């Protein structure tokens, strides 16, 4: 088996088990749906306010329900005792990391497509004209989130206060990414010139690359027994 096949085997394992239970995707989608509804009540949805807040609402929905998926990514392996099996696979830690990370990424993308469609209906925003730049931003954001999240998920899965610990680790590190995502989404949704998002794109790309590299260098230390 080549490296890519091995990684894909791990990704497929996660997808197959998810397709059988549908537990995680369902709860992620439902949760992000609820976030959109709750924000509709907490912020005055008068049009002027809405314009300012809407990109933030979208990303809060993405990130909060993404966090649910992350917590389960390694949490389930731990609970069912399959983590040892995973570690025994003839594959480098980096391969395990990539497999789990791509799995989280795919689940998040499915949830985001669902959330975006609900968002379009509920908040009456036509996203079709901005689909390409918005898709790029969402891709980079989800990648960054899955990148740091998988590392911290592997860490927090072994600790006592698992879910709380995961959020405490993820949020401070993801601050620059969240700022860039919300700003870039805001510019795109309100028809700003494409050049305006370049500085934010640079930050997102730098964030993704830096943390992917760090994950490559350090993931072996996290899962070693």
């Amino acid at each position, binding site marked *: 088996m080549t490296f890519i096949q091995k990684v894909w085997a791990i990704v497929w394992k996660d997808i197959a088990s998810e397709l059988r239970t549908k537990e995680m995707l369902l709860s992620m989608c439902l949760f992000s749906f609820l976030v959109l509804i709750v924000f509709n009540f907490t912020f005055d949805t008068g049009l002027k306010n809405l314009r300012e807040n809407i990109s933030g609402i979208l990303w809060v929905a993405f990130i909060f329900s993404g966090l649910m998926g992350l917590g389960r990514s390694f949490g389930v392996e731990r609970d069912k005792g399959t983590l040892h099996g995973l570690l025994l696979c003839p594959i480098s830690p980096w391969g395990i990391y990539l497999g789990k990370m791509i799995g989280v990424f795919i689940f998040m993308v499915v949830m985001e497509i669902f959330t975006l469609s609900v968002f379009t209906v509920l908040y009456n925003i036509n996203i079709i004209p901005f689909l390409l730049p918005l898709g790029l931003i969402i891709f980079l954001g989800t990648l960054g989130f899955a990148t*740091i999240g998988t*590392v911290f998920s592997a*860490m927090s899965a*072994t*600790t*006592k*206060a698992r879910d709380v*610990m995961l959020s*405490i*680790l993820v*949020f*401070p*590190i993801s*601050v*620059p*990414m969240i*700022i*860039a995502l919300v*700003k870039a989404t805001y510019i795109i949704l309100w028809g700003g010139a494409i050049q305006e998002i370049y*500085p*934010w794109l640079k*930050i997102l790309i*730098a*964030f993704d690359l*830096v*943390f992917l590299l*760090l994950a490559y260098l*350090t993931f072996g*230390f*996290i899962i*070693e*027994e």
Partner: protein
Amino acid sequence: MTHNRAFLKVFQFVTFFMMLLALYAIFVYAPVEKSMGIIQKIFYLHVPSAFLAFFAFFITFIASILYLYKRDNRWDTIAFCSAEIGVIFCTIVLITGPIWAKPIWNVWWTWDPRLTTTLILWFIYVAYLMLRSVAGENRRSNFSAVFGIFGFVNVPITFLAIRLWRTIHPLVITGKGINISTPMIHTLIIAFVAFCLLFFWLLINRIGLEKMRLKVEEIRASIEDKIHLEHEKQGG
């Protein structure tokens, strides 16, 4: 050992003396600033603490890398102790800052890049300490070393992002406009030296304490082993 202890005694005395000197310089020697008044004196505590907080987290970063590279527990202890003291200094910065800002800027807090980065930094290292307290014994060192590296690498990216965020929205307050007279510079230098000495004194003692704690744990484990063996002998 005795040599070490003598050195620590001298170090402690020098630190104490410098802290007294710094207090004298701040409250007696340095003139009261014309436009800000007495509140400006908080500056002499605020600036050295800010520097030392960053410095402490930098030590944690370097020690974390060295730990992963060399697998020597000493580096882990240094990283942990430095992060702990860094959080204390960072807390001092975050408390003294708003006390000064309220009368001068008329707000307790603004989302200025430096302020926000410091706050995020504080959150990262509080998370670091929490991670250490909840992680299992055998994984603690690795986890915290990795998080120490992630956290520090994140700082410049955060700073850039927040600066960019703030340049799009106009910034009301800039760091300019504070003219410092010579006695003020002298005071700042004295306070700076005093705080650096205090930092290293705390760090050395904290590392000593942590080493002692590890040793006590080791001794306790060996005693328990012995008791266990005795019981087995009597039973058999």
